[in-house]
């Protein structure tokens, strides 16, 4: 028990150390700071998908919609309403989270593969809107003409706009806060009911848990987290485009969660690191990167369904 706890503490410390010192060690492996920031935002998205998939057992295959809405919300706020980074993040989070929560109420009675199908289809609604409503969203070309703003703290100004390293640390702080909230919820009684529903919905119901209500809350929370990561992502490149809402990005997020290990808290972050770096690398060396990604997905499904961290755990148990 205590040695297990110590090991957990050590792993946690290693993860945070790696994240904190990323701007210093990444260049040694050919990485660059903006890539690190991108991985943080995408990784947070994968962890948000997994909050629902891995811990409530509910498969949404349309979560890119909330990610993309977060991105557009942030972009539109920065462009038209208020040139403030925190307000942009807030606007994006609210837009995606509220839209997701409203739609979630329509969906919570569906289960399994049917739930996945309905989330895909509804997710595409927002893709179409972003695509068609070009006067607001820039259509297929994407939304441009906004930029994250320096942070004014009263006593000091941090220029996260031009200083990539400062922006990385800002993103890391955001990441830490959201991940902290997720971890806190998962340890709470509500988190326990989420896991109960994942493990055995019938038993949960006959323990007096209002399953639909709990799924809806978990879904909505996950949408808010997702929208936040999308808002953060929009600020990495100061850009948002309809592909950020498309179901194929939803699929990418699910793959990251599964690849890293969906029954683990940190797995999806690892999955995101591998996926983003690999995609970056493969698309730079071959035009057939889609086949590689496709083959990788097939291989994960057939041979490593428990993901990288799941694999490690199994080995430890054996």
């Amino acid at each position, binding site marked *: 028990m205590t040695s297990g706890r110590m090991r957990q503490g050590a792993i946690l410390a290693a993860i945070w150390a790696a994240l904190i010192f990323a701007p210093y060690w990444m260049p040694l492996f050919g990485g660059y700071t903006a890539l690190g920031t991108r991985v943080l935002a995408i990784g947070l998205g994968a962890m948000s998908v997994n909050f629902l*998939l891995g811990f409530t057992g509910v*498969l949404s*295959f349309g979560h890119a919609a909330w990610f993309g809405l977060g991105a557009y919300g942030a972009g539109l706020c920065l462009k038209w309403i208020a040139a403030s980074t925190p307000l942009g993040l807030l606007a994006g989070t609210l837009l995606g989270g509220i839209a997701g929560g409203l739609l979630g109420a*329509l*969906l919570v*009675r*569906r*289960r*399994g*593969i*049917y739930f*996945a*199908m*309905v989330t*895909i*289809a*509804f997710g*595409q*609604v927002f893709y*179409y*809107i972003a695509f*068609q409503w070009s006067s607001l969203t820039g259509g297929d070309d994407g939304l441009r003409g906004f930029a994250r703003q320096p942070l004014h703290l009263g006593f000091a100004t941090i220029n996260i706009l031009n200083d990539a390293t400062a922006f990385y640390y800002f993103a890391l702080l955001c990441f830490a806060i959201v991940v902290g909230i997720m971890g806190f919820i998962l340890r709470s009684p509500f988190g326990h009911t989420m896991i109960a529903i994942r493990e055995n919905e019938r038993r949960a119901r006959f323990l007096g848990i209002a399953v639909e209500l709990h799924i809806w809350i978990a879904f909505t929370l996950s949408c808010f987290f997702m929208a936040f990561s999308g808002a953060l992502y929009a600020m990495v490149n100061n850009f948002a485009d309809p592909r950020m809402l498309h179901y*194929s990005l939803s*699929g990418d997020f*699910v*793959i990251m969660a*599964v690849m890293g290990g969906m029954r683990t808290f940190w797995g999806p972050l690892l999955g995101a690191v591998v996926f983003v770096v690999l995609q970056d690398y493969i698309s730079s060396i071959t035009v*057939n990167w*889609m*086949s590689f*990604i*496709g*083959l*990788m*997905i*097939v291989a*994960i*499904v*057939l041979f490593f*369904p428990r993901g990288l961290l799941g694999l490690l755990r199994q080995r430890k148990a054996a």
Partner: protein
Amino acid sequence: MIDLLLFNATNGLIIGAFYALMAIGLSLILNLSNVINFAHGGFLVIGAYLSYSLTPYLGFWGALIVAPFLTAAIGFLVERLLIRRVYGRDPLYSLLLTFGLAFIIEDGTRQIWGALGKPTSIPAFLSKPLSYQFFFITGYRLFMVAIVVLAIAVLFVLLRYTRAGIRVRAGTLDLETVAALGINIRTLRSLNFAIGIFLAGLAGVLASGQLGLEPTMGDGLLMPSFIAIIVGGVGSLNGTLLGGLMIGVAAGLTAVVFPSASDAIMYVIMAIVLLVRPRGLLGEEGMLT
């Protein structure tokens, strides 16, 4: 105005027939194997390109007949080699597997046939309008609808009157009991998958004559097929047919008044159906939900 309405309604019906053809294939696979085939659009593309490559040797009619069967054969192999490994596992894995397959098929098509679109030719007598007043009703469009109607009619007859068809329908309702009766459900599922893919291949051949060839031509048809299934009710092929036609016509008619919303209307229909009748128009209670 009447002409315009008629034009768009006809258009919608033709598109709806297409959606239905795709959706019924998807629905067959979903019902018996509990797999959402993300790669369905990919198989449509395979059918379309195969017919393109076969036409110089077999002619239009030969390709029309042979290409869907070849596509079905590929589907059969894919089921045997890959899909069946995820039966009985969390639906997550079948979704991801076919998602990955769709990537591979799209890229493979690009590799074999090139990334640029290809022109297609159809027999001259089919491309002429039938009358001057209804110029939009070309022979090819009628022909497409006729083939779709024929294919669906044959499928429904097979499902109703052949032994395999009856087993497929029984398996949709209660697969365990069918298995317990000593029926080989592995073979049944392979066959059923191949039939579903046959329909996708056929849709591909027909679509290529109307829309031309592109490696991504299946993408636009996948989402409407999902919606047709949801609107019609999971588990009901009649529902899927109805759903497909309905959203096609609705999209056609919306194009008259508000062209940019013609894609959105099917999502509105889906939302209304889910609110008012969550199991879908013809769906059974408790079916897969």
